[in-house]
């Protein structure tokens, strides 16, 4: 089938920052994203798991498929939010069907 080049960006971020991140993405013109739950992880700030938490906490993963030419705008927007917070941003080459959606 006909596919189109795109980028897949995956941002892992603290749950209390989720709404700030998605607001920044929307402002940067990102047309779509999906939020996935995260059970736990490990990084420079150590190991954590959802079981070691009370209240609203932990992290989420935000996945965006976007046109390659929009990548930079997205990364700028995302980076401003995550800059001082723990978390990671990874980018992969991807292909999508129905390019008109992105």
């Amino acid at each position, binding site marked *: 089938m006909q596919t189109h080049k795109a980028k897949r960006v995956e941002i892992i971020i603290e749950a209390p920052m989720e709404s*700030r991140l998605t607001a920044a993405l929307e402002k940067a013109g990102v047309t779509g994203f999906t939020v996935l739950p995260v059970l736990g992880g490990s990084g420079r700030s150590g190991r954590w798991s959802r079981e070691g938490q*009370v209240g609203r906490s932990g992290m989420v993963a935000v996945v965006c498929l976007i046109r390659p030419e929009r990548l930079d705008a997205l990364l700028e927007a995302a980076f401003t939010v995550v800059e001082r917070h*723990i978390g990671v941003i990874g980018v992969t080459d991807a292909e999508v069907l129905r390019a008109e959606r992105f």
Partner: protein
Amino acid sequence: MQDILALASANLLTPMILCFALGLVAALARSELTIPEAVAKGMSIYLLFSIGFKGGVSVADHGLDARLVAALAAGVVLSFVIPFAAFALLKVMTRLSATDAAAVAAHYGSISIVTFVTGSSVLQGAGLVAEGYMVAVAAAMEAPAIISALYLASRSGGQAEKMDADLWREILLNGSIVLLVGSFLIGLVTGEPGMARIEAFIVAPFQGVLCLFLLDMGLVAGRGMRNAKGVLTAGVLAFGLLMPVVGAGFGLAAGMLLGLSAGGLALMMVLAGSASYIAVPAAMRVALPDANPSIYLTLSLGVTFPFNLVLGIPAWVAVAQAVGG
């Protein structure tokens, strides 16, 4: 003193404290026992709703006390002031950075609603009745400490994010404030007839649910302790044991000024002496991201919470009985 010890040991052997201990031991022994997050959150909603509603009904029964407003104001002031005391103590007792110290201070100015719930349940066991509006005071004490802490952090050159409208809304409308205040108002409006309809749900099973909830708190606190090796220096640990006493002292003073009953006095000490571990940590992650969460979570959940549960609450109750009405 003897009374305090007797009360402490009576308190120690209740199913509630033993459930907390079971959770703690299980987590430290790395048992895979866990209570699903959704169930723990469900239980906390139940406990908040129940305690708020009962408070409202009790105010409806006894009429609106003129001291309600004064007590609310006192709570707000305590929450503003206590972080300064905590910050000063931390500067003296520990080597934490200004940012870390400010973040910790915020937690101690705010309150732990589970400590409050457990305190209410101990009061009940001791045959004391507190002013119903103490739950509203609890809600009023959740947020002000955050402002003091951000002021402390920025004064010391720490990089606090600017408090935007979103953050304000998140703090002031956080789940436990809304639920406590909301159910308090519902109890106030519906009074005894409302209570009659839902009593079998919110009164009878209360202590049992609290047991399972404290089991989960023990598990969480124990896991936090395990992950926090190296975070707790002797100074930090000592702060976590001293600060609740200092806070309770503030609460005692405020409560006596207000002329609260012995029950109300005890709860005021419980509130002022407790440290937040839900609302404030989330706010700190947003507003003071450079502060190390392991420090404030371990202190508030792993040191001060168990201290209050086992020693603090019975001590405050005994003091309130000795001093109060």
